[in-house]
């Protein structure tokens, strides 16, 4: 498809405009609450929705992540001189450094992100946001800050749980099926452990948590039009979150492993 130079310029200026608007909007989002108790209540509700609400899907995905990683590596290493316990080591580090934070957050961008965009966008369309504004509520802060803070708090925990379940998934896919022994897998898990990798996992989890809540909140908050536009905003929220998560993943890897 041919895209003219003018269209490209328009697209770039539109992205920059959104970026500027997003950055300026953050000042309203992180503001002193009108009532700490109400914000805390909303924070706890979000902890439950994002944390407990996402646990089953994260657990399911994590089991298969670990299982597939083990099977793929076993396939690639079979017949080589690399000892089998290395697979436990590879699964552990791959899970901690990359798979748990990135996969979990990509999935959460779909589940939590689209939910946030639809919820806030729906409130915009039903005039709930206008109603709160007229009451004197700082809607940017009340509707967005508890969600972002809850995500920053609970998503690193979810990522931790995901890593744990993923490693267990690797165990379940290899030991009972006779690929190698329990002792070999556990030896691999305990070998060459670098605590810094866990730090990297948490850095990724925190950054991704911010992206997957802030970007959808922005898309929902500024939605204009009807249900078709709300659907489009929800889709944009997930797509942009995913792209930004992958970009951030690359940058964090670059910076923290330099």
């Amino acid at each position, binding site marked *: 498809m041919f895209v003219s130079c003018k269209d490209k310029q328009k697209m770039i200026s539109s992205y920059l405009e959104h970026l500027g608007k997003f950055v300026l909007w953050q000042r309203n989002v992180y503001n002193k609450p*009108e*009532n700490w*108790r*109400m914000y805390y209540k909303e924070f706890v509700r979000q902890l439950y929705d994002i944390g407990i609400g996402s646990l089953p899907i994260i657990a399911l995905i994590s089991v298969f992540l670990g299982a597939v990683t083990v099977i793929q590596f076993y396939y690639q290493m079979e017949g080589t001189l690399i000892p089998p316990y290395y697979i436990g080591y590879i699964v552990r580090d791959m899970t901690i450094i990359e798979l748990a934070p990135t996969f979990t957050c990509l999935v959460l961008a779909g589940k939590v992100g689209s939910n946030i965009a639809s919820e806030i966008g729906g409130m915009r369309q*039903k*005039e*709930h946001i*206008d*109603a709160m*504004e*007229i*009451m*004197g*509520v700082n809607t940017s802060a009340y509707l967005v800050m508890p969600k972002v803070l809850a995500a920053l708090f609970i998503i690193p925990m979810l990522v931790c749980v995901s890593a744990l379940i993923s490693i267990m998934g690797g165990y379940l896919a290899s030991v009972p099926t006779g690929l190698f022994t329990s002792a070999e897998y556990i030896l691999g898990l305990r070998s060459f452990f670098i605590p810094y990798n866990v730090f990297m996992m948490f850095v990724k989890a925190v950054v991704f948590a911010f992206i997957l809540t802030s970007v959808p909140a922005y898309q929902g908050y500024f939605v204009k039009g009807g249900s078709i536009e709300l659907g489009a905003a929800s889709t944009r929220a997930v797509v942009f979150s995913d792209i930004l998560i992958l970009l951030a993943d690359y940058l964090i890897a670059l910076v923290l492993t330099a």
Partner: protein
Amino acid sequence: MIRIQDIRKSFGDVEVLKGINFEFEAGKNNLIIGKSGAGKTVLLKILIGLFEPTNGSVWYDQQQLGGLNKDQLKALRMQIGMLFQGNALFDSMNVEENIRFPMDMFTAMTAKEKQDRVDLCLERVSLEGSNLKYPSEISGGMQKRVGIARAIVLQPKYLFCDEPNSGLDPKTAITIDELISTITVDNNITTVINTHDMNSVMEIGDNICLLNQGKLAWKGGKEEVIDSENEVLQDFIFASPFLKKLKARALGG
């Protein structure tokens, strides 16, 4: 009292409001009327500060809306109640929680005080006992009344109603009009109602502002409506053929 001076509002090249001056009086039902697209909703949104005028000023008593700092604006907003066209009730909260929301957010009242106030407001709008129902479980008329109860819970000085009768049957519409009117007079509130319902105009229109193509076409009270010779007003009031016939018959035509 709310006063607007030379209010203009443009969206791109289109000028929607073209220099409107009007005074909305305290203790009266002030109606903004006009055809669809006349600029009523834009004017209402400018009055409550959701839109900024391109030119002109809005005065709440001695305070100019555009000149307030953040804290002053917040204090003013707490004196404002608003009934939305679609009610804007929070779906995830029941009736009681909806009404209690402004108190939870802005007051340090005890749970008992809040409960008493909620019950009082519900009694005021004749919805006693509906505390635990959700917006989806009650009728449109009841939702309007919950909206009114929420709008008056902080005892506002100014009440805004956007199309309070839209989607209601004529009898319920009259009940809602009477309720708004009683609350306005009893509490000496400056009430601004955006409507194109002719019953409202004739029943509660104490101070009417007729907009036509973004300009103030006529102002006056309900008593002056019938006898006015303003063409835009007559055209608006007697828009339906039925009313035209009635008028002609009344005049002996």
